[in-house]
């Protein structure tokens, strides 16, 4: 078996109020082009960058969450290259001395738990956006528009060591990273909106120990495509190795439309970025005090939450992991579990019905608007035998839609479970009259026929009869 070696470079947009080096708003995704700009972020002559302190705090939070060493002294550098979406002609980044280094995250894949090392985390600024006419790129375009809103939006770049062993692992790692950044509140984690972006480096080693060239894949814009793009590359590199050859050392781009990668440029064509220390910014000095204060205020991280959910609510790891992957769902679960005092049922309902409704109607957990009290009522209706589990699930969408309580809905629709023996006996008697041969079969010892009669009663009562009661009565009446 060939061995796969994958390392990731992840860019995460920070959710600060203002940009990294000026006071323009940083949340620019939905804005009209060129409406969140100023002399500084558009690179007007004579302007200077002023570092946003929140950016530093967010980067330190990310570094601490990923077990990095926080460098008390880090330095900003300029990365020089020409492109119309980069108005200064350079990007401010941290190349020589990043703010955080040498961390790790534990990756859980089934029963396996592996350490994925983080090489470094550094602060940098985003570039603008371009819209090309007639083509996908500036080459051959008949006209190109530049939107500078995104210029200067703060980013952290997180670089892993090549510790990932499969495309699936890469995807799981990206999800873990998203959950971590979301838990910290420093990044929305939205890959589709470009708030989280991933470049992947992949190479393979064959059974003889021969290593392939390394390929970098860019423009991966969803969690699913992290896996797909790397699978495509894995396959391509395997084929090259097995035929005795190798792939080119190059940068490739994932095509969302054709679901394959294509060559962007060879490594020889790479820019020389002429990095040098940014003379407009002093060295970034962070105090032990600040680091300690941030460390003391870190929110609960995904893996900590999973452990707590397993312990506090006696949930299986799977449930705990699903529920804690989203901060809002996790706290919703906790409210429901605490109100109903039925954690496992709460988990089942949230992972099942609530998430289904969220997906189908594209709602957030808050918009679902089923209160913990509604769940308590619903569970009580089931416990008291007033409705069946099936009915409960059937009416659940109405609790969401109508903002009515489960009890109101049950009453309004007359869905209360039928516990009245006489109603069940009447229905059964009719079924027995309709099918005397089945009655004979049962009496001859064919126990399986019981199900037929139970089904018939349920049908006649439109599912409202209490199934266990039907069972009990059917057994008694058929024997007579």
């Amino acid at each position, binding site marked *: 078996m060939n061995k796969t070696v994958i390392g990731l470079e992840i860019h995460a947009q920070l959710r600060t109020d203002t940009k990294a080096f000026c006071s323009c708003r940083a949340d620019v995704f939905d804005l009209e082009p060129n409406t969140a700009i100023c*002399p500084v972020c*558009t*690179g*007007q*002559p*004579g*302007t*200077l*960058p*002023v*570092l946003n302190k929140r950016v530093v705090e967010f980067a330190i939070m990310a570094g601490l969450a990923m077990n990095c060493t926080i460098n008390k002294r880090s330095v900003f550098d*300029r990365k*020089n290259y*020409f492109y*119309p979406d980069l*108005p*200064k*002609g*350079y990007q401010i980044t941290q190349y020589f001395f990043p703010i955080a280094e040498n961390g790790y995250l534990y990756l859980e894949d089934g029963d396996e738990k592996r350490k994925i090392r983080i090489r470094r985390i550094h602060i940098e600024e985003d570039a603008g956006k371009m819209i090309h006419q007639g083509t996908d790129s*500036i*080459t051959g375009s008949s006209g190109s528009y*530049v939107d500078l809103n995104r210029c200067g939006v703060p980013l952290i770049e997180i670089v892993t060591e090549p510790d990932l062993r499969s495309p699936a692992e890469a995807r799981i790692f990206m999800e873990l990273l998203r959950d971590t950044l979301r838990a910290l509140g420093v990044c929305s984690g939205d890959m589709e909106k470009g708030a989280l972006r991933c470049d992947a480096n992949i190479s393979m080693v064959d059974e003889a120990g021969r290593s392939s060239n390394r390929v970098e894949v860019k423009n991966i814009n969803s969690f699913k495509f992290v896996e797909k793009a790397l699978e495509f590359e894995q396959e391509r590199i395997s084929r090259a190795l097995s035929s005795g050859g190798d792939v080119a050392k190059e940068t490739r781009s994932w095509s969302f439309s054709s679901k394959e990668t294509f060559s962007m440029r060879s490594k020889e064509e790479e820019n*020389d970025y*002429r*990095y*040098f220390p940014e*003379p*407009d*910014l*002093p060295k970034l000095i962070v105090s032990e005090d600040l680091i300690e204060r941030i460390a003391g205020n870190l929110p609960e991280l995904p893996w900590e939450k999973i452990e707590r959910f397993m312990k506090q609510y006696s949930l299986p790891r799977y449930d705990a992991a699903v529920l804690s992957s989203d901060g809002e769902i996790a706290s919703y679960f906790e409210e429901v579990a605490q109100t109903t005092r039925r954690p496992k049922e709460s988990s089942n309902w949230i992972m099942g019905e609530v998430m289904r409704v969220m997906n189908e109607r594209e709602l957030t957990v808050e918009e679902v608007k089923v209160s913990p009290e509604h769940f308590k009522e619903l569970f009580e209706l089931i416990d008291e035998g007033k409705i069946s589990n099936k009915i409960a699930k059937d009416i659940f969408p109405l609790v969401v839609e109508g903002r009515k309580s489960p009890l109101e809905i049950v009453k309004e629709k007359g869905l209360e479970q039928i516990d009245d023996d006489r109603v069940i006996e009447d229905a059964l008697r009719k079924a027995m009259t309709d099918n005397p041969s089945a009655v004979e079969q049962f009496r001859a010892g064919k126990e399986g026929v019981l199900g037929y009669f139970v089904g018939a009663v349920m049908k006649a009562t439109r599912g409202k009869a209490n199934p266990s009661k039907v069972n009990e009565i059917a057994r008694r009446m058929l024997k007579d």
Partner: protein
Amino acid sequence: MTKNPLNLRLSEIISLEDTFEFYRERVMKYNDELKAFLQVSTLSGDKRQGFPYALKDNILAVGTRTTCGSRILENYESPYDATVTRKLAVRGGKLLGKTNLDEFAMGSSTENSAFGPSRNPWDLERIPGGSSGGSAAAVAAGLAPFALGSDTGGSVRQPASMCGIVGFKPTYGLVSRYGLVAFASSLDQIGPMTRCSQDAADVMSMISGHDSNDSNTVRKELSFDVSLKGYLKGLKLAVPSEMLNYPGLDSGVKERFLSIVEDIRRSGAEVEEISIPSVEYAVATYYLIAPAEASSNLARYEGIRFGPRVPSEDYESLTNKNRDIGFGKEVKRRILLGTFTLSATYYDAYYRKALKTRSVMAGELNRVLDEYDFILNPSSPVIAPKIGEITDPLTYYLMDIYTIPANVAGLPSISLPAGLVDEMPVGVLLTGRRFSDVSLLDAAKGVEDLSPSYRSGLTVLPERWTE
């Protein structure tokens, strides 16, 4: 107006009314000959009430173009005010106009201006020095009571010395660079060009101080609101032998310098010759660091947002064509030099080494200044050359040896006129410890009291401009 503003110190000019009109008329009358200004203010009526000043055309002021003496910014309208512009406006400053400079402040003569050289008021055949040559010529001919320049390697002090006025480069970080078009960010500093050191102190009290828009400005508050005494007695001054024995030092200039040194000694200051070995590498270090930063600072002028946007078939050729047409020879030379020394292959050999040399040199200078109050040397090895006389750029580069060390170490440094050689002004340069700006200005006042270039405490204007 009963008093002639040309005979007044800045503090008195500030207290008068209608001085703006007086200077503006002089600008209109003489600028054709001097070519000191690239643009003259169009202020009218009440807006003229206040004290006039001139601004080097690489500093932004709303209502003016900021050309940097370059074709590529020929039509660039300032979208905001530089911090110094805003601070002067708050104190009642009224902008007379924008002065000529070597393109992007790269040069020592204003010959690199895309709009032609300025003239030296002492001899119209000669350069005024540079890069703040327009500002120097304006003040030296009495077209403005003071001007602001920018000093990256001597661009305030060298033209001041060649035009016979005072040029002060403050400690790096005392004056905000926000709104100064960057040449070499770690070296650039705005400074006043005046007719006496007291005026320089008065300007500093208006323009210095921490600015939240420039992260390199310091929070330290120095008080420039002082009346300079001019005590030289008891001061210890050091003359670096490497500067005194520099082969390019003109014998006449050296003689004048040694004579003023004698005068200073007689006033009770100790003057000793010392050695600062790394000064020998000052020019080399500077011409690695400054072009490297410049190559990055000037990348934004790519022809899309700045410049005429010459039609091209694709982005790369658009950038190439516009930069080719938009930049002059010297700017291109420095961009190429800086791009080369920052390239991955040569970074360690050149840029990294230059940073090391810079810190060694700063260390040596600081050690000397631990022992001595100030370093004393000529401001320029020669008097102002004739326009077109020097064609080899290296000759000009080497002439910066006296002024560069202060920029490399971020030190305050002032050039004072100290008499004439061949009827042209020469200057002496005093350089002090970081943040010793106020005592440096005080010592400068002491030197002024000895200098033949002053009358009633102000630098002498060449006669033809006082008629």
